[in-house]
């Protein structure tokens, strides 16, 4: 399983979670975990997803999130979970 962390930050507006989740669903990417909060007025969401279902190159998936980045003026950052596992787990 290729797991990735998707972090989403920006101005809170209606439908951010829906937009991201819908796009991931369209790509056949399963959401494994989700946490969301508002930090000092800033929408902050972290998702752990399984990329394998998409069957697409990593760069293609990342670029597929561009319309949401643009439309909702959000910072959406995707990185493989391996970097966190490497750094924090022996």
């Amino acid at each position, binding site marked *: 399983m290729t797991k990735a962390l998707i*972090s989403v930050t920006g101005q809170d507006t209606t439908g951010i979670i829906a937009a991201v989740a819908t796009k991931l669903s369209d790509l056949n990417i399963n959401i494994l975990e989700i946490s969301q909060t508002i930090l000092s007025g800033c929408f902050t969401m972290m998702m752990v997803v399984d990329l394998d279902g998409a069957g697409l190159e990593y760069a293609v998936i990342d670029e597929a999130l561009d319309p949401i980045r643009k439309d909702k003026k959000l910072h959406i950052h995707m*990185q493989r979970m*391996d*970097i*966190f596992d490497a*750094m*924090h787990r022996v």
Partner: protein
Amino acid sequence: MIETGEILQTMQMIQQQNFDIRTITLGINLLDCSHPVAEACAARVYDKICMTAKDLVKTGEAIERELGIPIVNKRISVTPISLICQGDPRPIAKALDKAAKEMGVNFLGGYSALMQKGATKADERLVESIPEVLATTERLCSSVNVGSTRAGINMNAVRQMGQIIKKTAELTADNDSLGCAKLVVFCNAVEDNPFMAGAFCGVGEPECAINVGVSGPGVVKTALEQVKGQPFDVVAETIKRTAFKITRVGQLVAREASQRLNIPFGIVDLSLAPTPARGDSVAHVLTEMGLEKAGAPGTTAALALLNDAVKKGGVMASNHVGGLSGAFIPVSEEIGTIEAAAAGQLTLEKLEAMTCVCSVGLDMIAIPGDTSAETISGIIADEAAIGMVNSKTTAVRVIPAVGKKAGDTVEFGGLLGFAPVMPVNTCSNADFIARGGRIPAPLQSLKN
């Protein structure tokens, strides 16, 4: 399961504390490219590099994107050219520079000669060509090994390198003597160093190998900010923990690159490599320990602790540790040393003392343009002696900036940054350098 706090810590390290992978360096063995005709050798060299490294930059960029960590440089190191060159080495230099541009790497290292015990004819031809080659190529880096614990110090080579550095400075005078920034003189040079300008692919290396260098002084400094005023036991432990995390990412990147390029993983270099950016300084790690500036009494001890703790933390995080693996304290590439040197608090002599306990030596130090070749040779001899006696790598990369005097500034741009011109001791050593010959290997070389 990874906790939110851990995720945020990683993100902060990358986004706010300048943590990055400094380089993926592909070592390429060129021993099979030798040919009696220089042009034919150059063509073989060019073809082999382009064939082996064709996916290096693309792969590095893909890993960078997926793991969300910058991989600042993708570079190539090759077999010391004096070992494959049977005639004029200059056509090979041109081919190397062209291959570096074609592959999209910013530096290629290995225009090198290993002369610790003496020079071959090929070594002599290569060393003589260094000033012209560094003035007429853009991305090629050169290094010469003049001593080792096993062989002693080749004082003929030391004398010659003083002259070569002067000539290189003169031929690149229009550019603040930039050529000297691409030339390193080593004692105990290592074969798998991924860092420029001293990288080359040693004779004991395989056909090709992936070597990775990490960065992260900003991360170490931030970690130490949390233990202000606490004893050194706590400082060392904090550095070890941080170095472990940094190195694990280096190992991950090295493994990914190795798998995707189908090239064996060589080593992860544990050095903390600084940049001129604020917050990315080894000197500021030292000041965080309680020194006003790098250079204050206590600096050498602080550096010794840092260097040792980085190794202890890093060594468990990687299958194979190698390269230089120590803290870098260049002057031009590092804001903390620049500031301390400009304020007169960090002198050449103190830097020399610091090199007794860290890896690299006198690195990227601008000195007055009228410094004599003999003085430069003396500086090289002193550093080589430290390396030889302590069984460690030392190096000299000084820039006698033409037309500049102590207190002026030289500007190289980019990663190389800028540097204050530091005063040197001008007391004559001409008779000492004129002697030549070899300083015998020390007793500690007889370990068998």
